[in-house]
């Protein structure tokens, strides 16, 4: 260990390596002894020494003597390197540095105040907001600008306060202040009222930032301003307006459609740039996304095919989807043309858009295309067609879809089952007829079972006839048929199915066993009581199979049996997290006021996933004991539990919850938890400000 005097001597050496080693040795001193040395080392002319000093400062921690010494560097001085290094060190200390810096800000000169604002911004703690407001009130415009930038830096943790200050700053006379405020608002995604933006969009310095903000204004006037800007000579301005318009269209659908109806057209230059921007070979992905949307808004005919192609490009598929929605039924003929030909992936994607584009008069053309596609050799195309036919099909489509299900065609069985269920619910009589005709055919068991399940019985006659049919289907050698049959028994929900469900618990397929357990929770006697509760209680009490026990615990919740709480209580403490989480989640859903005790017990479980499930359940229990437990969880050893506890308290609400959160903020070192605490406090303490994160990154304004 190096003595203080040796460190003092070595820090004066002309050899940077000697100085660096001396700096490293400071870590063995107390913060009080080392404070002066740290400050000297942070101001060293050699970057390696300064870097070592930063590490030492972090290792010594935010001790009072060290903090007091560091803030002296914010006062006037010639060593710029030292001041920058001190700002970084103090910011890294986070919350601990804020009161110390706040104490000196009134005594600092303008440069020092700017540095203080940087410390506050870098500390990422809403505690700094009050000091930053004081700095924003400073007479020096540079200090005020720095304060606004720092407010934007921590704004995500205190959105309402940041939003209030930044919006007020838009009325300032100083242009740089207004620019800092606009950029801050853009960074935070805060909606700026159009009234405040109107006069700024044409401004020489503020124009670009104002146009970026206009994309969130949700007003036709904002769209007009962006449309004007898109015709600008400058390519940068074109892109800015393009992205802004797309943002506006995506966030405000009526506005996009209204604008389209107005028939606004782009000038030649802008149109040329638009086509270039949406070309598949464009390297500017954000520009391409925006161009696809804007092309639809301005009804650019060349955009339809490009949008269809883009449906299978992951980078732009969301915007392609939105674009086709904006084009509307006019795009249908082009989309139908693509359904018939081309790569399977693209055909399937085109089929997926049909539901959105069909309108009265075009249904039959769409159905014809879908009927041809359900027997396509590509499972991808057939699946997409079946899913869509389930929504758009008519009664005459039941029989062909029924046949596809009965055939158990590889790759599209699931889609066919969904389509058949959907069609059966829409055309019950036709579905009953089809199922009745097919009932003698063993190969149709799966399809008939789907119809019975979708209509909840009375398909082949009485419910007893249906259950008898489904029981026979449970003898099938085909596991998919048995699974469908057991699910249909559950959908029918009659206790007549009890025996079939019971025996399905012994099925050799795991999925069918679990499905049978779930079905037990859904079967009811004629007077509405649970038929399977007794069996479920036996299962949760005696089964040594965690997966089955967990399923039984959840099914018991569905069974709505008054004995559920007592049966689930021991499970909530099970060593198996799978079982305990299932029990806790089910307990949380019970209306039974007695559920709080087992939930409190589970919140002290050794497994943190169980604790989290218990906290989520307690969040909805309005009881002081729940609040107390959520508060205790803020000190849990696992950071993810603490973070969840903060979020739960935010939703629990109330002054006591806010007090618990504020109290914890002081001792919380994990940034993600602190962020959650800030979020929770914002939710409790202030009405939310309209804020929307940008879906397309706005370009940086040039000042």
């Amino acid at each position, binding site marked *: 260990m190096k003595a203080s005097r040796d460190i003092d001597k070595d820090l004066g050496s002309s050899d940077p390596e000697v100085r660096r080693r001396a700096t490293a040795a400071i870590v063995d001193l107390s913060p009080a002894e080392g404070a002066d040395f740290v400050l000297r080392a942070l101001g060293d002319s050699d970057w390696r020494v300064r870097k070592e000093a930063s590490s030492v400062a972090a290792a010594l921690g935010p001790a009072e003597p060290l903090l007091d010494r560091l803030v002296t560097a914010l006062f006037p001085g010639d060593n710029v390197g030292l001041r920058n290094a001190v700002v970084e060190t103090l910011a890294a200390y986070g919350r601990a540095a804020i009161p110390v810096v706040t104490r000196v800000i009134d005594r600092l000169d303008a440069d020092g105040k700017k540095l203080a604002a940087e410390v506050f911004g870098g500390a990422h703690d809403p505690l700094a907001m009050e000091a930053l407001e004081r700095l924003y009130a400073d007479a020096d415009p540079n200090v005020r600008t720095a304060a606004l930038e720092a407010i934007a830096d921590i704004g995500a943790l205190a959105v309402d306060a940041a939003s209030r200050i930044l919006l007020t700053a838009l009325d300032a006379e100083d242009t740089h202040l207004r620019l800092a405020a606009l950029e801050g608002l853009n960074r935070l995604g805060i909606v700026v009222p159009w009234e405040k933006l109107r006069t700024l969009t044409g401004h020489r310095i503020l124009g670009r930032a104002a146009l970026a903000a206009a994309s969130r204004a949700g007003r036709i006037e904002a769209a007009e301003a962006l449309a004007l800007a898109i015709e600008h000579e400058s390519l940068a301005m074109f892109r800015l307006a393009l992205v802004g318009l797309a943002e506006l269209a995506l966030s405000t659908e009526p506005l996009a459609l209204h604008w389209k109806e107005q028939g606004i057209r782009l000038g030649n230059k802008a149109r040329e740039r638009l086509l270039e921007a949406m070309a598949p070979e464009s390297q500017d992905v954000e520009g391409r996304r925006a161009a696809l949307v804007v092309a639809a808004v301005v009804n650019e005919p060349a955009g339809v095919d490009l949008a269809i192609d883009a449906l299978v490009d992951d980078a732009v598929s969301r915007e392609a989807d939105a674009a086709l929605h904006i084009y509307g039924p006019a795009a249908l003929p082009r989309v139908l043309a693509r359904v018939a030909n081309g790569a399977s992936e693209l055909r399937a994607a085109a089929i997926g858009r049909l539901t959105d584009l069909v309108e009265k008069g075009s249904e039959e053309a769409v159905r014809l295309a879908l009927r041809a596609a359900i027997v396509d050799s590509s499972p991808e195309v057939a699946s997409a067609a079946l899913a869509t036919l389930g929504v758009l099909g008519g009664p005459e489509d039941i029989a062909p879809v029924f046949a596809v299900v009965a055939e158990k065609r590889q790759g599209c069985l699931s889609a066919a089952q969904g389509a058949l269920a959907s069609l059966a619910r829409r055309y019950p009589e036709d579905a009953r007829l089809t199922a009745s005709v097919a009932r003698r055919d063993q190969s149709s068991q799966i399809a008939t079972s789907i119809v019975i399940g979708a209509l909840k019985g009375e398909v082949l006659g009485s419910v007893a006839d249906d259950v008898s049919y489904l029981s026979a289907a449970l003898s099938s050698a085909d596991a998919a048929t048995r699974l469908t049959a057991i699910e249909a028994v559950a959908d029918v929900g009659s206790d007549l199915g009890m*025996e079939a469900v*019971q*025996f399905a618990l*012994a099925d*050799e397929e795991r999925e069918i066993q679990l499905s049978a357990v779930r079905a037990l929770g859904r079967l009811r006697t004629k007077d509405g009581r649970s038929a399977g509760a007794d069996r479920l209680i036996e299962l949760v009490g005696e089964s040594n199979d965690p997966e089955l026990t967990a399923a039984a615990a959840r099914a018991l919740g569905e069974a709505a049996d008054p004995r559920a709480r007592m049966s689930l209580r021991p499970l909530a403490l099970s060593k198996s997290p799978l079982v305990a989480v299932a029990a806790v989640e089910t307990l949380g859903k019970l209306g039974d006021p007695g559920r709080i005790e087992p939930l409190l017990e589970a919140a002290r479980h050794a497994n943190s996933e169980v604790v989290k499930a218990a906290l989520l359940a307690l969040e909805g229990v309005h009881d002081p004991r729940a609040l107390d437990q959520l508060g205790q969880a803020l000190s849990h050893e696992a950071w993810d539990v603490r973070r969840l506890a903060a979020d739960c308290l935010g939703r629990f609400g109330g002054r006591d919850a806010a007090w618990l959160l504020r109290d914890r903020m002081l001792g919380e070192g994990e940034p993600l938890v602190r962020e959650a605490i800030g979020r929770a406090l914002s939710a409790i303490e202030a009405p939310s400000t309209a804020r929307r994160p940008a879906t397309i990154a706005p370009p940086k304004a040039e000042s």
Partner: protein
Amino acid sequence: MSLASRPDDIRLRPDEFRMLRDLVNGHAGIYFGDEALPVLERRLRERLAALGLKKYSEYYQFLQFSSSGLTELDEAIDLLTTNETYFFREDYQLRAFSNEVLPRLADDAASRRRLSVWSAGCSTGEEVYTLAILIVESGLFPNWDIRVYGSDISRRCVGAARRGIYGPSAFRTAPAPFRRDYFIERADGSHVIDPIRELCHFGHLNLMDNERVRVVGRVDAVFCRNVLIYFDQKSRKKVIDMFYERLIPGGYLFLGHSESLLNISTAFELVHLSEDLIYRKPLSPMAARGGSE
């Protein structure tokens, strides 16, 4: 030349044999005498190879402590059990069932109009379909709710039973009309016809698992033939008690010709039929001659 053990080099040591034997016995009741060491060694060797294990003791550890140990134990038992069976096996007993027991059940259960029979340890399903056919052939149960349950500890057997497709050897003792009337001949074998298949329900059950066997519900007759011969005395008693619990009062228990309840104190009463001796659960507990305790 590699020094690594090849699967067929791996030997089952006597201590490993005992550990594995006891594990299988505790789980499924099946008991292997000392003479079965080579059988276990041969039949389990493929599992060691599949799991990349070098010793039977490692396999034992895997069965005991791996998260997939229970599933693997099912695999092992699948390999260790004999699944040989055929239609109309031990036909004198089936005649007794058809000619003497079914008429009694038709009378006893007339008010319920429901008949449930359980083939416990049904292997690949031949006995289950045989019983279903006999019930239909009897003509005593028109429009009754008939269920023939088949269960086995082997998943592979249950799957085969559900498929209901059989080769010629399964019919070695079956009367010719039986095959003609109740099977459809196809390239891959003889398929059980749908009306018979619909009466038969198969499940994967370990007879030693008292909690799971409750899925069968209460039944009128249990067939458990040539299964208990593989069990030790204690497990046999446990299974017999479970059958007693599953039978409705007056229900019948059929065991294999070499099996009896001698040496097992049970509450069953003996019924003398013209061609066989079978067991019956007394109609009332008072009638029981022994205790199942």
